[in-house]
């Protein structure tokens, strides 16, 4: 109805004559654009700072010098060396197996706990939330030391079971908090609607609730994986001697100084992370638009 696109009628003053009627005035559109450019510049500056160390390592991974000295001479030999570095490769394998298994169990236990907290534990939920937040905010160093000392006192000591359980205890709360947030946003009406249409409780859960919280379970699992993969303090104190995870392996290499093998490894891992991250983001954008992608990242880092 409103013909917004029609041109202004000839009889009235056209925007072009603004100068003589309005007198001098700031051009609103132009100022906004300049401001925006300034903020974008800041954003790029921050990205520049974030990526400087990473890019330096990436560039040096192709530099022939063993000590990272210039002039730059291209080589791929460090990647060849990396491929032959059994310590790093088997450490990567150990880390992947550990993180995957911990993430899987954390997802199952965490989702169950989240459901229980939201659906059944009326007053207990606050207590549990406090407990989970504590678990998340205690420095990992202190948690790891506490776990190790208890294990020593019990007589179990360092070992794979302790490493697994310790990693699980640290990672699971993240799954719970992510899923709880989603469940609270969801409410119970949808499931009740399904029940009123004749679905049994389990069917209603499987057909209605589960698909709706699926995404947050997935991001919680991803978060658990990342946290377990990176949890150096837990690995450092709880892993059995001789069972070096990737961060531990990197640690021993780094203590001995500059190492072109690590440059190559860093380049590979960071490229994979950036690539995977961007792919996930693209998928999320195509599926659910920008808002979901952002809120999911937020969810992940709640």
């Amino acid at each position, binding site marked *: 109805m409103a013909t917004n696109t029609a041109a202004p009628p000839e009889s009235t003053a056209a925007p072009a004559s603004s100068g003589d009627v*309005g007198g001098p005035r700031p051009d609103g559109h132009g100022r906004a654009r300049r401001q925006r450019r300034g903020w974008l510049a800041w954003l790029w500056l921050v990205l520049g700072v974030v990526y400087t160390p990473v890019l330096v390592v990436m560039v040096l991974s192709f530099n022939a010098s063993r000590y990272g000295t210039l002039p730059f001479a291209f080589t791929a030999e460090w990647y060849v060396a990396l491929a032959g570095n059994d310590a790093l490769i088997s450490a990567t394998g150990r880390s992947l197996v550990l993180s995957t298994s911990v993430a899987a169990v954390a997802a199952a236990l965490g989702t169950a706990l989240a459901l229980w907290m939201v659906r059944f534990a009326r007053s207990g939920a606050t207590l549990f939330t406090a407990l989970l937040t504590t678990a998340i905010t205690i420095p990992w160093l202190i948690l790891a030391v506490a776990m190790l000392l208890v294990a020593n006192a019990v007589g179990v000591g360092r070992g794979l079971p302790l490493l697994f359980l310790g990693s699980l205890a640290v990672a699971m709360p993240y799954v719970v908090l992510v899923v709880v947030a989603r469940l609270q946003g969801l409410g119970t009406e949808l499931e009740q609607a399904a029940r009123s249409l004749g679905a049994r409780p389990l069917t209603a859960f499987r057909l209605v609730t589960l698909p709706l919280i699926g995404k947050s379970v997935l991001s919680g699992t991803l978060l658990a994986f990342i946290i377990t993969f990176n949890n150096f303090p837990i690995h450092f104190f709880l892993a059995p001697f001789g069972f070096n995870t990737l961060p531990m392996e990197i640690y021993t290499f780094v203590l001995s100084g500059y190492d072109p093998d690590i440059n190559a490894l860093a380049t590979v891992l960071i490229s994979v992370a950036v690539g995977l991250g961007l792919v996930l983001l693209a998928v999320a954008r195509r599926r659910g638009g920008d808002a979901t992608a952002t809120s999911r990242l937020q969810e992940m880092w709640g």
Partner: protein
Amino acid sequence: MADLRLDEVWMSYSPEGPPVLRGLSIDVADGEFYAMVGPSGSGKTSILKVLGGFVAPDAGRVVLDGSDVSGVPPERRDLGIVFQSYALFPHLTVGENVGFGLRMRRVRAREQRAEVTRLLALVGLPEMEARYPDELSGGQQQRVALARALVTRPKALLLDEPLSALDRKIRQEMQVELRRIQREAGVTAIIVTHDQEEALALGDRLMVLDAGEVRQEGRPAEVYSHPRSRFVATFLGSANLLPATVDAVEPSRIDLGGLPAHGLILPEGSRTGDRVTVCVRPERWRLAGDDGAAPDGLALRATVRSVQLSGQVGECRLDSELGELALTVLSSQVARLEEGVEVSLHAAPDDVHVLEEPAAEPTEATEATAPAGSRP
């Protein structure tokens, strides 16, 4: 307190975008309560943004208290604004919210306190100073927003759909309150709203806005009872819109598909053969007995199809030779109007408005204003 003027204002949100305001001019007198009403997307809020200084017009002038304020930023325009969402500061108490403008002007603390107390009394919220906005009801938040906007004794008060978030009952109460407070403060006020009842009830003067242009302006009663276009007729209240042709100009005679109407006032410059629209408000029909044909105005017979009682009035649908008609009567009269009863309707010449535009082709009895651009 001051007068306020917009002069031929053009505005668009991006250089390439379509203009939202198209050469708009308004002139609000000192102390006047000026109501702007229009459908969503008509540019109401944009007018407030231009007046407030949040958006610079592409062309035209904003004149406040006799001086051009076009380049003056909002913080130095000295206007009080009540936002649709109230926009109360959630981290400040009611007292701090109301005192905010004084604090920005570095008024001494004691004076601030005195003024805050005075304003809270004016809006009827004494002893609420220490509360936080989220502890108040919608109506109370609205009053706080009003007090906050008035505390600096602004040159004018701008109200953006101030009552739209309130329940119907509180809304009516607040309408009365708003008028009282505006009178007592003696402040020039501009309200924009999509609610015709609000605009009719509040404004000393009323302006109907559509697609960034003024459609009609005048005293509320005047605009309501003498709409000059189909848009105004249907947007403010409801109307029977009937297609017609001008038969004769002096004395006037209009032909509504075979039915003549005499003594109507024609739009200026009408000529014989012009296609026009005849508008009659549903409550302006008179139920005539069979006391003979009235000489002037519009008279016809119709059959009651349905009656719907809504409180004090009854709304009827009738079938006539002109198609479907709407009729509103006091509920005391509804008893006479059973389904299938035939009645004589008469509208006096003063209640029949001849609008220049031809009616849309398929007969439209009462046209409901459809929201523009509701397609996904």
